C-alpha cells in the first residue's frame, strides 16, 4: 500500500516537473524564434544588431524593448520589437532570398499568412501561430534603409482585422509599435 502511494506521488512529481520543463521549453522556443529571425536579418543583409547596453553607449538605435507603460496604449499586449535603422538592406546573400530563409526558419511551427514584396514599399512578411485564446504574430518589414522585427500577441478581434487585410494591418501594427517606441 505504502509502495503504491509512493509510486503515485513520484508520478505526480514527475508529471509536474515535466509540465514545468515543457512550459519553460515552449517559452524558450517562442523567444528563440524571434531571436532567430533577428539574427537571420543580420546575417542575410550583413547588418549588425547590438544589445541595449551597446545602444545606450553608442547612441545607435538597433533594438529596443518597449516599457510596460507604453504597452498600455497599444491594441496588443506583450510584444518584442527590433529596429534596424539607417542600414543598407540592398545587399543580400545571392544564393537564396530572405523569404525562403524565413520559411526555413519559421515553418512548419508558424503559418505564413502573407509575404509581400513591392518596389516602392519594400518587403513585408507576416507569420502567425495560435497560442491558447490569443494569437502570436511575427511581422518582418524590410525597407531600403530600415527594417523591423515585431512579435505581438493579438486577441481574436484584432487578429480577425489582420486576416481581413493582412498586408495593411501588418504595416499598421508595425507603425503602431515603432511610434510608441519612439
Amino acid at each position, binding site marked *: *500500500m505504502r509502495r503504491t502511494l509512493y509510486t503515485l506521488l513520484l508520478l505526480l512529481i514527475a508529471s509536474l516537473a515535466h509540465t514545468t520543463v515543457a512550459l519553460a521549453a515552449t517559452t524558450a522556443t517562442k523567444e528563440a524564434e524571434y531571436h532567430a529571425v533577428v539574427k537571420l536579418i543580420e546575417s542575410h543583409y550583413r547588418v549588425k544588431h547590438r544589445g541595449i547596453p551597446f545602444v545606450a553607449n553608442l547612441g545607435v538605435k538597433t533594438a529596443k524593448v518597449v516599457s510596460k507603460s507604453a504597452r498600455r496604449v497599444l491594441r496588443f499586449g506583450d510584444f518584442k520589437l527590433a529596429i534596424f535603422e539607417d542600414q543598407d538592406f540592398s545587399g543580400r546573400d545571392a544564393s537564396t532570398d530572405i523569404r525562403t530563409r524565413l520559411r526555413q526558419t519559421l515553418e512548419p511551427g508558424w503559418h505564413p499568412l502573407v509575404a509581400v*514584396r513591392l518596389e516602392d514599399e519594400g518587403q513585408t512578411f507576416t507569420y502567425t501561430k495560435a497560442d491558447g485564446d490569443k494569437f502570436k504574430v511575427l511581422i518582418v518589414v524590410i525597407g531600403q534603409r530600415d527594417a523591423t522585427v515585431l512579435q505581438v500577441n493579438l486577441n481574436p478581434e484584432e487578429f480577425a482585422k489582420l486576416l481581413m487585410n493582412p498586408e495593411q494591418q501588418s504595416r499598421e501594427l508595425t507603425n503602431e509599435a515603432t511610434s510608441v517606441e519612439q
Partner: protein
Amino acid sequence: MNKKLNSWLKIFSLAVALLAVCATGARAQQPQYAAKLQLDNEESLAQRANELIDVNLDENLLRIIPKKITTTSGTGEKVDVGAIIGGLKGVYVRSYGFNAEGEYTEANLAGVRTQLRSPGWSRLVNIIKKKADENVRIEVYMMTSTGSIDGIAILALEPKRLTMVNIVGNINLEKLSQLEGQFGIPEIGIGSGSDGDKDNKATKKP
C-alpha cells in the same frame, strides 16, 4: 486494496498516454480539399519577380473571422464579409510582378493548368479586357461536386504580372467580385462595376 490501487494507477497511466497520443494526432491533422491547388510549384517565378504577393488563409484562420462583419470595398460599397466567407475553407493568392514582358511563359503555368484539367474543374469564363492599354486575360475556373461549388481558381495574365487566386469552399459567384481587395486578394477586375469593363469580352465555355 493494494491490487485495486494498482489497477487504478495502470488505468491512469494508460489514460495519460492515450491523451498524449490524441493531442499529437490532433495537432498534425490538416484537412485536405480537392479544390485546393498546389500553387508553389513555380518558386523560380517568386525569385525572378520584382513584386510578389503571397497570401495563405486556411480554414482554421477563416473560422476566426466573426460571421457578422461588414467592410467597405474599394468602390465604396458595403460588403457583408461574413455572408461571403461563411462557406470558405481557404483563400490563397500568388501574384508576381515583373519589370519586363516575357518574364513568365505558359510553361510556368503548366503545373496549375494540369491541376485545373483534373476531374471536377471546369472553365467558367474567359475575360479579355484592356487595362492601361495592356491586354489582360482573366480565366475563372470552378470545381463542383453534387451540385455545390467546392472551389474557384482565377488566373489573371497580364504582360508584366501573373496572378493566381484559389478560393476553396462554397462561394456565391455573384459576390466573388466583392472579395477583391479583401484578404489580400488583389483588385483583378472581375466585377462588372470596375474600370475597363466596358471593353470586356466574356465568353462562357462549358
